[in-house]
């Protein structure tokens, strides 16, 4: 198959790199239509309040105002991917400060913002719950009195008050397995709330055509989730909804579900004009989503020789005011709470709880960062107690191909041992590090696994008249480079140069269904469909070529640049170009050449292997990719500040479609994980978010990133994929915080159990230790 390898394994410039570098890329917020109005939100000043009445008269009387919408304008039902518990705008009650309550469309953004504040809403304030403990207290005020009646797609607790999800999984003898352990460590770990901080805040443009169809351009990770939400939330038939992704300035999970789209459509409908809604940064931070904060009690037992025998995890996630992706995040978190090790006896139990705070939802890692911070920190504690090198302990217990994951799925390929050995060698693991005066240095490690096959995807590849092809998947490139990688995969199957492939703009009018740009799934899952579609085109090309060259199709081969020739006969007269074939198909025989591919992840769990309750069905999530990271940190003993000096990140891409893109994924994800570990934390005073700005919420910038984040790309072909690829978008984030925490331990002897490791927390711990 050497002919198909050409376009894979190379790092051509991103298809959209030049336009982005030149500032020409068109994001939703840049788009303008004739007669376009601007939208603005009115958000709830109360954490929990009953909405008694609206009075929009003052806002409507303001010059330039064209429409005001509230929950009274909602024409559909409740929305939510797993529990239908929210509406396009707060309906009946508001449940967090910053929740959109009303919206205004006006001739300018300034007028819209001003008029939004003229909408009068009468509230009756209700008692609110700010924390898990408050939410779970006896007699706590309920966020969702009608929770039992909501539509849900998972077994939810009954009469649980504010408890949205309670999931549990037991493997082997569960907690009884600790009787096989010689050494047991136990601890409680705390994780903070991280904001996605995508560069482009939520933005959307909605316009109705005269025939009543609405087109929505938005900054989203999934045009099909937007379409589904518009359908469910506003009752508009899908025949009347067209969703298009403009360029997207980052998502990281924050735009996996619908954001401003429903409101913009309601405004456009009522104002009978196109409406653009672009959130300000503080609106985005107060009204949108973040990573679940929570606590995890973790217990791990091992034999004296380092064999892991049992693990128990009890986890509590603050889920915020609406479920959003919480039940799924919880399920995935529990699925990763055992860690990438062969631990025979496991009991994991998790809870997600409604509180009067913003929604905690999908975020790069999807529950795994929390579980891995706790679990991987604890592996190091165990290593210390056992007197075994932490990398050695991990290698000893590393999961391998053929082993089974928590839940019972079989691991198809694992490079975990290789990844650990790679970072050990590259980091010169055992070499002592010299530190400047007043500082201490140390190295830490973390192993990681994460998924890359998830739900369904389709692809359509069409041969164009000049012999080039266009591939259409509906997958949105949110900055990670999937347009380029999928084009490369398509080109490879047809022996084309990447310039001979065009990538269709994601558009629900023309694209096959695709779940979304989440779960590191695009290269693996969508790539599957692209390959299948391209191979279908290839088969048709060969049929035509066989007729044109008068030989059997089996004798044909692809030749670079879009030609089919007879094997062993290099002469020009023994080959035809794709353009010739296209001409034949379009004007003489057979009709247009189109190939389609369709893929669904299906890897059912095994209830004999792991007993579960209250979890989502995770059989639609499969194929794990493994990695390891080593990090060197410097701890300033005077201030407690932690600086990452260097990082070594080894991740298995199965087969690297675009090594340059993988390297940049590793750089970006590691740095985002560094922020999670060290500086990023949304903070609340009661239910009020206190730092919704980039002045007060600090993520690492170029100056914080270590000079070298060494990306080590491993290639252990994944047997379940035709090209052997895997995804690596999340692992470098997941493994950052535990590796940094373990490095801080190595440097200082501290065992910290709460992230972010702010200088203040580190200094206090240093002083307490003495």
């Amino acid at each position, binding site marked *: 198959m050497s002919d198909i390898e050409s376009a894979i394994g190379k790092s051509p410039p991103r298809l959209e790199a030049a336009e982005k570098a030149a500032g020409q890329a068109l994001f939703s917020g840049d788009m303008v239509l004739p007669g376009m109005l601007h939208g603005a939100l009115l958000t709830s000043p109360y954490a929990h309040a009953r909405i008694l009445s609206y009075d929009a008269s003052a806002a409507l009387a303001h010059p330039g105002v064209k429409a005001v919408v509230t929950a009274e304008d909602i024409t559909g039902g409740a929305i939510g991917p797993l529990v239908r518990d929210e509406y396009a705008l707060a309906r009946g009650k508001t449940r967090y400060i910053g929740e959109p309550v009303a919206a205004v469309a006006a001739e300018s953004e300034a007028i819209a913002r001003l008029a939004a504040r003229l909408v009068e809403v009468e509230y009756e304030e209700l008692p609110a719950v700010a924390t898990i403990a408050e939410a779970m207290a006896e007699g706590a005020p309920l966020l969702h009195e009608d929770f039992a009646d909501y539509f849900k797609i998972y077994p939810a607790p009954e009469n649980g008050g504010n408890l949205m999800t309670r999931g549990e999984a037991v493997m082997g003898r569960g907690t009884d397995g600790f009787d096989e352990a010689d050494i047991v460590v136990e601890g409680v770990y705390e994780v903070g709330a991280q904001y996605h901080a995508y560069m482009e805040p939520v933005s959307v443009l909605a316009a109705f055509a005269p025939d009543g169809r609405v087109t929505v351009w938005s900054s989203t990770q999934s045009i099909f989730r937007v379409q589904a939400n518009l359908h469910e939330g506003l009752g508009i038939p899908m025949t009347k909804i067209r969703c298009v992704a403009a360029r997207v300035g980052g998502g990281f999970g924050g735009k996996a579900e619908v954001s401003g789209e429903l409101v913009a459509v309601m405004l456009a409908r009522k104002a009978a004009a196109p409406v653009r809604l672009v959130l300000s940064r503080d609106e985005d931070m107060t009204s949108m989503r973040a990573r679940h904060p929570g606590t995890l009690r973790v217990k791990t037992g091992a034999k004296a020789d380092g064999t892991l025998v049992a693990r128990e995890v009890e986890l509590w996630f603050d889920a915020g005011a609406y479920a959003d992706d919480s039940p799924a995040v919880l399920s995935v978190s529990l699925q990763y709470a055992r860690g990438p090790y062969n631990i025979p006896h496991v009991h994991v139990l998790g809870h997600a709880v409604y509180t009067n705070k913003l929604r905690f939802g999908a975020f790069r890692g999807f529950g795994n960062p929390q579980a891995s911070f706790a679990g991987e920190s604890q592996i190091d504690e165990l290593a210390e107690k056992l007197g075994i090198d932490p990398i050695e302990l991990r290698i000893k217990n590393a999961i391998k191909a053929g082993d089974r994951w928590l839940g019972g799925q079989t691991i198809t390929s694992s490079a975990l041992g290789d990844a650990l050995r790679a970072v050990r060698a590259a980091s010169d693991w055992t070499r002592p590090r010299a530190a400047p005066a007043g500082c201490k240095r140390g190295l830490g490690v973390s192993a990681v696994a994460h998924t890359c096959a998830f739900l369904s995807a389709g692809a359509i590849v069409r041969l164009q008249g000049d012999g080039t092809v266009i591939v259409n998947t509906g997958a949105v490139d949110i900055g990670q480079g999937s347009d380029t990688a999928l084009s490369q995969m398509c080109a490879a199957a047809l022996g084309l140069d990447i310039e001979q492939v065009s990538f269709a703009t994601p558009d629900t009018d023309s694209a096959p269904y695709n779940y979304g740009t989440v779960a590191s799934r695009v290269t693996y899952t969508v790539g599957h469909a692209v390959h299948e579609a391209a191979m279908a085109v290839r088969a048709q090309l060969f049929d035509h070529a066989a007729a044109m060259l008068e030989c059997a199709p089996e004798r044909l081969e692809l030749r670079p640049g879009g030609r089919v020739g007879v094997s062993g006969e290099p002469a020009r007269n023994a080959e035809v170009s794709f353009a010739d074939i296209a001409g034949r198909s379009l004007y003489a025989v057979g009709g247009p050449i189109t190939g389609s591919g369709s893929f669904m992840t299906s890897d059912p769990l095994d209830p004999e292997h792991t007993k579960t309750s209250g979890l989502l069905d995770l059989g639609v999530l499969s194929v794990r990719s493994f990695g390891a990271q080593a990090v060197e940190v410097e701890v300033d003993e*005077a201030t407690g500040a932690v600086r990452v000096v260097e990082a070594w990140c080894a991740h298995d891409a199965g087969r690297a479609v675009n090594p340059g893109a993988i390297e940049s994924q590793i750089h970006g994800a590691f740095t985002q994980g560094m922020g999670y570990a060290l500086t990023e934390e949304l903070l609340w005073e009661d239910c009020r978010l*206190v730092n919704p700005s980039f002045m007060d919420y*600090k993520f*690492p*910038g170029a100056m914080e990133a270590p000079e070298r984040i060494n990306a080590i790309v491993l290639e252990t072909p994944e047997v379940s994929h035709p090209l052997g690829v895997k995804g690596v978008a999340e692992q470098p984030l997941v493994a950052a915080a535990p590796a940094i925490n373990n490095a801080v331990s190595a440097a200082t002897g501290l065992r910290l159990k709460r992230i972010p490791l702010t*200088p*203040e927390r580190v200094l206090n711990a240093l002083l307490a230790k003495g």
Partner: protein
Amino acid sequence: MDFYQPTSLDAALALLAADPEALPLAGGATLVAMMNADLVEPSALVSLRDVAELQTIEAAADGGFRIGAMISHAALADEARLGGGNEVVRQAAARIAHPQVRNIGTLGGAVAHGDPSSDLPAALVAADAAIEIAGPAARRVVAAENFFEDYLTTALKPGEMVSAITLPVQPEGAVGHYEKFARVHGGYATLSVAVVLAMAGGECSHVRVALGAAGATPVRVDAAEARLLGSVLDADAVRDAAAILAEASDPIDDVRGSAEYRLMLVPRLLGRALAAAEGGA
């Protein structure tokens, strides 16, 4: 809202005198952000961009400097003539935010805003700087130490403007150092220490210390400096001086750090700042 762009200081002052709700606009880094957040609603903005007399750095005959209010942080950070003790001001300017903010933010704007978490106020106090104030009726000069009166409150009276900052000749051999601790590069300080230090024969012959983000105004205490003066900057002297400064500090709890943590940083950063200055002295 009206917008004016006068070309002389007198014209600017006249515009401000005519409308008590008008505000001077310097770089706008802070003012425009505050307007966007609805924290201020001026009736008019008087841009100082074209007022030439605010745009110069002059070396005085005695070796000091007079720096116009509209000099940007970037220009100040690049001013090679600010050496010796006055280096503390140059370093503070260089540690403000990022290049974008340093290119637009101005010395006069930073001083007039009077934010105790900002970098220049403490540095100016440590450098014994003076603030030149231009008012509708008269000009006056106020020592930096007396200029900052409270949180976001300065000695400026309605209608008055900062026209320049003057830096004195620093003692022979003095070295300035600005030690800033922030959560990330370019962040506002959790705590900062501005030091001007001269050593003679191994002993401290001149010292000024001012803390930033330690209270509503820069914190400077005579007794702390007296404790250091004449010492060899031994650990006891530094610890005592830091204790005096911490005692006079009244920091806030916020996202950048708790009050308690800021107080813990006082001796730690003071030691570091003095050591750095001594290393250069």
